[in-house]
């Protein structure tokens, strides 16, 4: 698939000599949803801000649709929509006017019917004549999204879109993001919520301390890095592990009614077959079996720990 954003050897050292980004290279594919996942202070906002023209890079280069973000800033920026992390809005502005204002800034002729559609899609139409300071936090975030969409960008950056948004609205936001992708937009979002990346991202880029640790398809990442757990329910409770099972990495749960077995899904020999064989020999009767995938959360913690 074609790349829309291409980041090459990007570094950023702030004026106070703090190095926020270390040699980041990353290609973002057209029409994908990619999550930049990392703890607070990882450098996610810095990375986004450089691509959008708000922060000046120290070295390296970024192209958007083959245009250089510094030399050809008009071409790159007019394709980009940005939803910032902070609710940075002028409190006394009216919703409709303020969204239209952003469209103007991006050099587009006024288009009230488009603004109307965007506000309707984001359930803000009722609030079009409200002042921003009359809105709830979730609504303000949606106003920021409306502003970012007002000039019909092909690349949308969402910096921590669900920060401060309650669970119900978060689901709605995810739907909105998926719809946007359907309409052809490439979405880059940052998050430190693993569920968010897992729920909507095609790919995940894990960032910590200014370094890009890993980029992979969300499902592959989970799979390849994943520890799996096999949960076995027994018909009859056991008092202790039969001797021939002592060599397996088993934990007795549930007053002897369940066993859990951890294995690495990457390895060729998971040991499941022989475990089941040995259980049969020991005379244990199985009631139910299920496996659990370890979540991105565990993977993430693991990666960040290794990075320390």
């Amino acid at each position, binding site marked *: 698939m074609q790349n829309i954003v291409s980041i090459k050897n990007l570094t950023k050292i702030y*004026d106070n000599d703090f190095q926020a980004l270390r040699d980041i290279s990353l290609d973002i594919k057209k029409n994908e949803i990619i999550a930049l996942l990392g703890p607070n202070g990882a450098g996610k906002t810095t990375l986004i801000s450089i691509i959008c023209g708000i922060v*000046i890079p120290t070295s390296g280069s970024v192209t958007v649709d083959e245009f250089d973000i510094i030399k050809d800033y008009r071409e790159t920026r007019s394709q980009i929509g940005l939803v910032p992390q902070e609710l*940075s809005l002028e409190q006394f502005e009216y919703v409709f006017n303020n969204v239209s204002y952003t469209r103007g800034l991006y050099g587009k002729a006024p288009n009230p019917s488009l603004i109307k559609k965007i506000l309707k899609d984001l359930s803000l139409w009722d609030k079009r004549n409200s002042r921003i300071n009359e809105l709830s936090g979730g609504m303000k975030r949606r106003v920021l999204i409306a502003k970012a969409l007002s000039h019909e960008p092909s690349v949308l950056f969402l910096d921590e879109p669900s920060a401060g948004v309650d669970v119900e609205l978060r689901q709605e936001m995810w739907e909105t993001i998926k719809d946007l992708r359907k309409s052809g937009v490439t979405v880059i979002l940052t998050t430190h919520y693993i569920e968010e990346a897992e729920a909507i991202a095609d790919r995940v880029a894990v960032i910590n301390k200014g370094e890009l640790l890993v980029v992979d398809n969300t499902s592959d990442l989970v799979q390849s890095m994943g520890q799996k757990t096999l949960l076995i329910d027994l018909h009859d409770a056991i008092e202790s592990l039969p001797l021939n099972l002592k060599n397996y990495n088993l934990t007795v749960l549930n007053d002897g009614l369940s066993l859990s077995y951890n294995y690495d899904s990457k390895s060729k020999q998971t040991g499941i077959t022989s475990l089941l064989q040995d259980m049969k020999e020991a005379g244990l009767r199985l009631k139910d079996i299920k496996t659990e995938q370890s979540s991105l959360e565990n993977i993430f913690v693991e990666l960040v720990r290794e990075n320390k």
Partner: protein
Amino acid sequence: MNYYAIRAIYLHEMDRMRRTIGQSILSPVISTSLYFIVFGSVIGSMIPELNGVSYGSFIVPGLLMLTLLTQSISNSAFGIFFPKFTGSIYEVLAAPISSLEVIIGFVGASATKSLIVGIIILITASFFVELKIQYPILMLFLLILTCLTFSLFGFLIGLLSNNFEQLQVVPLIIITPLVFLGGSLYTIEMLPEFWQKVSYFNPVVYLINGMRWSFYGSSDINIFISIISLVIFLITCIVGVAIVISKGYGIKN
């Protein structure tokens, strides 16, 4: 040129003026009217004519300048500082706009506002004193040039300010005294010789006298020197803003 962006910034700024119409227009009009009542009518009636002009009329160009300067500076300083303060400046930085376009939008709106206020003050003045303008085109030229120059100066202050205090310090500590001591209410000749000499180092003296010349055809300072000094200050401001912006606006990291 991104005309829609310039237009958007310009209208957005003008909109703020409409919302704060009391603060933007009423307060300068009221304070100027008070000057006319106190200095023009009450005290002025006891002062002899200056160069054949009644005292009330004499102070009109000076008071006009006083308002133009303070208004232009505060309009544009606040105009650019406010989005910095709220954080909404991010969209100006991220938009496909050149620095020049940003400046035209903000400074243009600020200058327009001061121009409107200036004209309202002239109209107000005409209710209190006899007003005759000898060189109206020159007057309008000076009016616009002053509004633009000091709006640019205010823009620079707004860019460099990191808090409200800094925003107000320059207009309050520097501009207001310079204007009051710049011969808005008196002619330089009325001062003791030493202070006359000091006055020639006050740039505002040149501005006010230039404006007064356009009204009455006479002033303390040659009109060309006045215009040249205004243009020099304009160029200084342009260079200043250019330098600050090339270093990332004082906003970009």
